[in-house]
């Protein structure tokens, strides 16, 4: 079973077309990974599908970095 980090990394790589090595915990989707605001919305949608969960608009707004996404998901699935 892939870890949350691996699964998030795959979604980010697929969605944003970045190299796996760029997907670091502190990487900001917008500033470091070249996402625009709509890309971030789509990324959150794909994470919802990947982890079969709903992320509210309020929570989604707080997800700015790869690490934010991982710790949010871990807090919900553990």
């Amino acid at each position, binding site marked *: 079973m892939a870890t949350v980090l691996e699964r998030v990394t795959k979604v980010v790589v697929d969605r944003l077309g970045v190299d796996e090595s760029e997907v670091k915990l502190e990487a900001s989707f917008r500033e470091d990974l070249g996402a625009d605001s*709509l890309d971030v*919305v*789509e990324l959150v*949608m794909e994470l919802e599908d990947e982890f079969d969960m709903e992320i509210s608009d309020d929570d989604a707004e707080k997800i700015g970095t790869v690490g934010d996404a991982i710790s949010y998901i871990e807090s919900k699935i553990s």
Partner: protein
Amino acid sequence: MGKLVGKTAVVTGASRGIGRAIALQLASEGANVVVNFSGSEQKAQQVVSEIEQLGAKAIAVQANVSDSDSVQNLMSAAVEQFGSIDVLVNNAGITRDNLIMRMKEDEWDEVINTNLKGVFLCTKAVTRQMMKQRSGRIINISSIVGVMGNAGQANYVAAKAGVIGLTKTTARELASRNILVNAIAPGFITTEMTDELPEDIKSSMLNQIPLAKLGQPEDIAKAVVFLASDDASYMTGQTLHIDGGMYM
């Protein structure tokens, strides 16, 4: 062969008037249609059976467009039944006419909630599906009075003008995902809404229309088919005036 075979369209306020004509016209081009209604279930079911007679598929779904949970249920029902939402037609609308000096706050709120907030909620609810599909068409039914203004309809006019602004913004936000968003501004169209008007008002209306007749619901419905089809793949953010030349 129809222009919309295999596509699924959600039409709000489709049990009568312009919405009904839109639902039937989309179906005649082969689309599956979700016939939304708020109160008139019997009429909505009648539209469904007329669509089935045309050889297309349809379901009737009750929903209040100004309520987000209700709207979510409507869109979920559409996806569950047909697997996609390719076209959303925001048509549902009401009137509560009064002069500004006499207009009650409730009259203002009801019209804004259904005619403007309803468009926002339905649009928001389909974007997720359309973004995943990487395609979609949203067609908002505004009104020519939203462009011209009309005494006695401050609430309706404000909502319909708002719909044009919302159309342009939605078009800009979603263009990169191949979701095209346009509006139609009908002039005076023969429906129950206009049938009830007194003769003298009707004749003064006719005097303002270069084509000197009221429009038919089908005149609007055919434009919706155009905007929903591949024929309109290079336009977004526009408002088509279908008003017999009333405003130019």
